């Protein structure tokens, strides 16, 4: 057993503990009989625990990609149904942070991807957007140029210039990037997952831009 295996197995353990912490905090926050002096504090606890959990899942997933143990299990998904679940999964947290989370897509739009993997990319992207959004986060999906494009947009200050140019070559060498640590892991993760999706010689990618539908940052997932 080498060190990375040991790391992976303890990350798995930590993640399970965090999962239980999260569900306890969730009960605590949602129980009206609990007198929490500062509700925002509890929400913050929830938010950070969720982020830590997402990060651990990303690490484990990347570990498996690195060991070639992970393949995308592509299946047809209805985007409206899928985004409903993504919104549901993140709504409680957004509410407690006073951020409005919504989705928008054509009810008949279908796409082909691994729902688990893409969901974890979107969860962590939304988790990231929490920190920058002022009042609103929107997740939307469309079909463009033969790709399915899923966007996570916020109405915050947008991505710094250093990030948008970075994406071209970061996929294989995340260590060369200038982005702060957490974002770096998140983007590397998103890129790796996007690239697992291939169809007809085309491969998935991510793009970052500012001011698409909402004025702030816009994370784009392009899936073939």
């Amino acid at each position, binding site marked *: 057993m080498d060190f990375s295996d040991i790391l992976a197995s303890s990350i*798995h353990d930590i993640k*399970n503990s*965090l*999962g*239980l912490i*999260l*569900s*306890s905090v*969730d*009960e605590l926050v*949602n129980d009206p009989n609990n007198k929490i002096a500062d509700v925002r504090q509890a929400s913050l606890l929830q938010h950070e625990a969720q982020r830590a*959990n997402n990060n651990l*899942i990303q690490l*484990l*997933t990347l570990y*498996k990609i690195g060991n070639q*143990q*992970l*393949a995308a*299990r*592509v299946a*047809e998904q*209805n985007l*409206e*149904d899928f985004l*409903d*679940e993504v919104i*549901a*999964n*993140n*709504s*409680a947290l957004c509410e407690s942070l006073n951020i409005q989370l919504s989705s928008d897509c054509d*009810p*008949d739009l*279908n796409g*082909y991807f691994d729902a*688990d993997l893409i*969901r*974890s990319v979107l969860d962590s992207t939304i988790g990231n957007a929490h920190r920058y959004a002022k009042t609103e986060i929107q997740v939307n999906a469309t079909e463009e140029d033969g790709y399915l494009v899923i966007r996570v947009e916020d109405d915050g200050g947008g991505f710094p210039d250093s990030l948008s140019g970075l994406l071209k070559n970061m996929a294989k060498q995340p260590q060369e990037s200038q982005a702060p640590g957490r974002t770096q892991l998140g983007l590397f993760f998103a890129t790796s997952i996007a690239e697992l999706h291939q*169809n*007809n010689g085309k491969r998935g990618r991510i793009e970052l831009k500012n001011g698409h539908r909402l004025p702030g940052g816009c994370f784009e997932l392009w899936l073939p």
Partner: protein
Amino acid sequence: MANDFSDKSFLVVDDFPDMRSAIRHLLRSLGVSTLEQARDGQEAIAQLTRTSFDVILCDYNLGPGKDGQQVLEEARHRQLIGVNTIFIMITAENTREMVMSAIEYSPDSYLAKPFTKELLRTRLTKLFAAKANLAEVNKALIAKDYAAAISELDRLIAAKPKNLSELIRTKTDILLTAKRYEEAKKIFEDVLGARDLPWARLGLGKVYFWQKKYPLAQEVFEHIVGLDANMIAAYDWLAKTQTALKQFTAAEKTIQSAARLSPRGLPRQQLLGELALSNGNTHDAELAFGRAVALAKHSVLNHPSLFAGLAKSKSANGKHAEALKVVADIGKTFANGQEAELYAATATATVKKDQGDMEGAAAALKAAEESMQQMATTRHSSKVTLEMAKTYAQLGEQKKAEKLIHEAIANNHDEEELLMEVVQVCRDADLDYDAETAIREIQQAVVKTNNEGVRLIKQGQFEAAIQLLSGAADEMPGNKTINLNAAKAIIMKMESMGATADDITAVRHFIERVRDLDPNDWRLGDVISRLRQLATGAS
């Protein structure tokens, strides 16, 4: 309220008390009031035997004993849960691959840990809606009335709903079960015209396989494996096709790859063991059967043939003492079953022969014969017949082996997979028996009888037709098709001339025979529903 689950019953299965309580709290907050829990697979099965649930939330990892997949397998196999039960498998990222690669029995939904209350609510609401949407289809499927299921699906498809492609996929599954291959093929080709989807390509391959266009099937399955090296179902079908093409070494290699990708599939390990043993790769056979026996420990699919396979492989590798120990385990694992006794005896006979103890081998063979005779009063499966034939052949009893093989062919003249096994048994045993010619002759004889029966019915000579087909059925009581044809002849007579109590009894007799052989035979539904109509009309 749309999201109220208060009238639904839930079973939560997890070995971890904190996780059970977390899920329990979560469900309570969704309004669930009927909620049971189980802490391992055995407890879950015990609960399912007693009560039926609307939803089962089951973790894949349940500690020692059965895993979540084995719980699902046993629940479906023993029909403890029906099509209306929602089974949700809870996975962690380290069990994802194992769970997703299980193809024999798949749950209604997967839920990756951790999940929030809102996600569970959304998922449950959709799953309930989907079950309600398919209620009529499922009702028809339970009655094995495939025509009704398909016309209901067509009605749903015509509305072009969001889940259109899921409905289309369900429809092709049913078409394949009902052996309506050309219709299924047309749909697969249409789907593939729009996008290269693995499920449609796999379906197309299956159509070719069932239509016996083996080289075309092989091409399709090889193509899928080339595109996606992780699609295990394609390996399984490729191996089947290679077996049909008598490429036994290639088939073993293919199934070896699949077993490497998904090592927890029991039928796959057994198949690998059988192929390896008959190809003379006794070391690989021992490994595969060893894994199969270990996997089967907590599985409802555990079977004495796995132990017999392991014993024979060990014996072939010169480990006679170990082999006999495995044989002894058969008696310990399967309490007093004739089938277990038979496999213990045939395995013993093989081991003794390998040891050079011909007297011991003959004694074991005699014990096997006795078990089989006792089973004959109830029924013995064609697998048992073939096992016995193999053993006879190994010990030089050619004539007896040939007689059994002839019986197996006669009872299964249109069961391609079993016939392939027959051919393989003859090859392995070096029997001087031309199985392929025998198969052809029997098939021709059956077709001739059938055509004659159909001709007589068309001419209105019902009695003559019934006499002919009933006679054939009594000659081959183990042949499902022939028994069904006899039943249908009597039904057609009643449909044209009115029902009588005697005729209804006669039909039931044939139906019982078929049901005994295979309660899930795809043609039973039609015959039973036609009989029911006649019976209600008569009373």
